[in-house]
């Protein structure tokens, strides 16, 4: 709330929402709020943030409340023991969140038809949530379907940061879309995408997500019908909106994302360059080793040592090849994913600006009206709500993103270090096993001479 109060003094006279959580238990809803809650319950309403975002029965509602920043609410005094027992409790969550929805992407398969060739993946779901009819699902989905899901999530949850998908387009001829490596890289990224959605306290209850996981046939036209039904949708003011003052924290987010994107780009270029240099070194190494072998062919005493050296170099070549492959397959895609993520995050920031701009415009219109003491029009109030809910959602998701980013990069860079260590360890082992062989012979020579 720091930024908002300070800069936007237009807002000051109006009552404001706090961005900390108002649990339904603590803040009994006013008439208007009821409407908002009701509308938000099925996850379609944009104001689907602070309050009951999930369609639940009362018991799970109480048992599973989670704050915007992801920490669980202590509801031990409220929940019934039976509901607690019903929930599947599993640890292993870094936030301390207990999960009740598990999703994996596995088993890629190629489909060949007369029209096209494509890959499908099996999406397995295990859950105890009552939003799902069954506790387990197994469906086949292709990239298109994931793309559809992401678009739906972006449309229906515009105040949230939607995790990125792996790149859609690949250059034909440059990348083999059906190679094992490419498919595996994609599978991992799709798996990560679904897991992030499943872990999100709001997104995971989205009905499109539910459909994606459970429907036998994904009727992608579903979305259109819902769109037209949507009551209050955030109208996007296209072009020419003026923002009085962007709250400092969101301005900082934008600046940070710009700089961060730059750094990601640089790191991507460096990583690619290293892979290139390593590949060229590998080429030379592949020529170098065999020369020792051909030398050994016309030597007697030196035959074994020279063969040994040749063998060592061959091992080092294999180790280096593995390193460059790993970096290409595991390191670069994650970097690229983050760049895509940031693109979509910047869009969300823009939308937030637009919502704020809309509110400010409406507010201005009201404030400068001729009438004295006008009642605050409900739609201005609604706009303000929108702004504040958006800000709250975004802030919560931003914190979540920062946390994930830290973990992701810690893992990514540690992984890079590990791969390099493993490469050197393989080479070390090869050379170390050669030296005593060379020295033994020497010993024997020394004794006989």
């Amino acid at each position, binding site marked *: 709330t720091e930024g908002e109060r300070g800069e936007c003094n237009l807002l000051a006279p109006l009552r404001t929402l706090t961005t900390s959580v108002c649990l339904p238990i603590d803040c009994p809803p006013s008439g208007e709020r009821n409407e908002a809650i009701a509308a938000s319950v099925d996850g379609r309403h944009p104001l689907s943030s602070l309050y009951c975002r999930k369609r639940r029965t009362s018991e799970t509602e109480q048992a599973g409340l989670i704050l915007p920043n992801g920490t669980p609410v202590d509801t031990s005094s409220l929940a019934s023991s039976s509901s607690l027992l019903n929930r599947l409790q599993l640890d292993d969550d870094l936030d301390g969140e207990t999960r009740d929805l598990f999703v994996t992407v596995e088993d890629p398969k190629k489909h060949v038809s007369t029209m096209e060739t494509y890959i499908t993946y099996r999406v397995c779901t295990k859950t105890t949530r009552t939003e799902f009819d069954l506790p387990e699902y197994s469906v086949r989905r292709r990239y298109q379907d994931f793309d559809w899901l992401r678009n739906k999530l972006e449309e229906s949850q515009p105040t949230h940061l939607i995790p990125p998908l792996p790149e859609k387009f690949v250059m034909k001829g440059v990348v083999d879309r059906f190679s094992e490596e490419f498919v595996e890289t994609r599978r991992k990224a799709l798996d990560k995408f679904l897991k992030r959605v499943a872990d999100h306290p709001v997104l995971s209850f989205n009905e499109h997500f539910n459909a994606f996981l459970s429907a036998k046939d994904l009727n992608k036209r579903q979305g259109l019908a819902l769109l037209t039904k949507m009551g209050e949708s955030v109208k996007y003011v296209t072009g020419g909106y003026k923002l009085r003052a962007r709250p400092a924290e969101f301005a900082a987010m934008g600046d940070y994302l710009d700089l961060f994107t730059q750094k990601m780009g640089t790191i991507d270029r460096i990583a690619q360059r290293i892979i290139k240099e390593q590949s060229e070194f590998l080429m*030379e190494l592949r020529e170098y080793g065999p020369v020792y072998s051909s030398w050994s062919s*016309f030597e007697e005493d030196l035959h074994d040592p020279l063969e040994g050296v040749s063998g060592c170099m061959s091992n080092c070549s294999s180790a280096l090849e593995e390193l460059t492959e790993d970096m290409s397959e595991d390191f670069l895609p994650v970097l690229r994913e983050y760049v895509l993520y940031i693109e979509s995050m910047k869009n969300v920031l823009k939308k937030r600006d637009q919502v704020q701009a809309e509110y400010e415009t409406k507010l201005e219109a009201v404030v400068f009206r001729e009438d004295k003491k006008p009642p605050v029009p409900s739609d201005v109030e609604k706009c303000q709500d929108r702004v504040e809910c958006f800000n709250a959602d975004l802030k919560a998701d931003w914190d979540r993103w920062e946390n994930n980013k830290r973990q992701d990069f810690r893992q990514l860079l540690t992984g890079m270090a590990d791969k390099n260590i493993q490469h050197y360890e393989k080479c070390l082992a090869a050379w170390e096993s050669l*030296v005593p062989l060379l020295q033994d012979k020497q010993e024997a020579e020394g004794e006989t001479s």
Partner: protein
Amino acid sequence: MADSGSEDIAVIGNTDLTPSESENNVKNAMVEKGTSLLKKMEISVAEAEKRTGKNAVNMQETYTVYLIETRPVDAASEGTNPVPDSLWRRYSEFELLRNYLLVTYPFLVVPPLPEKRAEFVWHKLSADNMDPDFVERRRVGLENFLLRVASHPDLSSDKIFYSFLTEENGWKETVFETGFQAKADSRLKALNATFRVKNPDKRFAEMKHYGDELQSVISQLLRVRARAADRLYGVYKVHGNYGRVFSEWSAIEKEMGDGLQSAGHHMDAYAASVDDILEEEEHYADQLKEYLFYADALRAVCRKHELTQYELEMAAQDLTSKKQQREELATGTIRTFSLKGVTSKLFGQETPEQREAKLKMLETQIEEGEELVKERNAECEEFVKSAWVDIERFKEQKDHDLREALISYAIMQISMCKKGIQVWNNAKECFSKM
């Protein structure tokens, strides 16, 4: 130093042997198997200096001179450590010495000099003869040459070699006085001519073939190694860019900043480490180069043997034909086609007096010819005997030295891997603290 041969296997199972220790093993082996000279005298090429002066065509030139230091072994072991005797020599004088040895001992595998011009260089190394690194490596190579000669059972007792080490002035004149130049020129001419030996000695033919193959394979090895060194340099240096970007990135992060910044420093260290690695590898390349040039020396011995044998065959052939001529003259029959035969048919035969005179001349020639054949035969036998002893010695030396070189190369690789593991472990620790 006069005790057992344990020095050359002093490092059993020790993989922490440094390349310089390994080279010491080679040097110790030289002293061990060496003879009187190296046991009496310590030899080193201690320094290099630039000089300018006027050359043969009175033009100003810059050249490098090398300081040769000698010191009696006993004095050093007594601990008195007297000032060594020293003199300056330039590369061309080393060349003169070697040419003299080549001509005087054609049946020996004469140790080679370090290369005249830098070859098989990768981009960071300079091909300039004046470059300090090149000069330094040449200094080491020249010292190695002197030690090799001084440890050779035959070459070490050569007087010219001794005065090369001890008499600064007038040495050149002494060398030319031996008249080796004339021999060198005629040999060179003969060797450059194409000749075919009727009964080639199988052993020498095989040895020459081995020399060819060795030369070819080492050239190839050095070429590819230089290319690989270039690439490796690139790999390491690009990691330095990580250092910079991590530093920049850390500036916009809160909790991740420290970890990134320190990791960046390790990436810089990694990039910098390649310079030392490749410098050590140059050392290995020099060891290979020595044997590249040794292969040439080996081939030279085989070639000279061929020449010796050819000359013997020529003498024998000449003798046979003279004998035949005598027989023809004596019996009056002409078996072979000759101008004599034709002219005698056309113009009639010679007078008995003429024939008598010719016969007498032939007899003398035959006598001389038989002497020559005997001489050349003895020469050839002597050559084969001495050459083969030296070739055996060379084989053993080569096997020992190259094995040492391979061990030190393996140890270098081990050291490089260990350093790499350490740096990445350090970086990993920083990353894990992000």
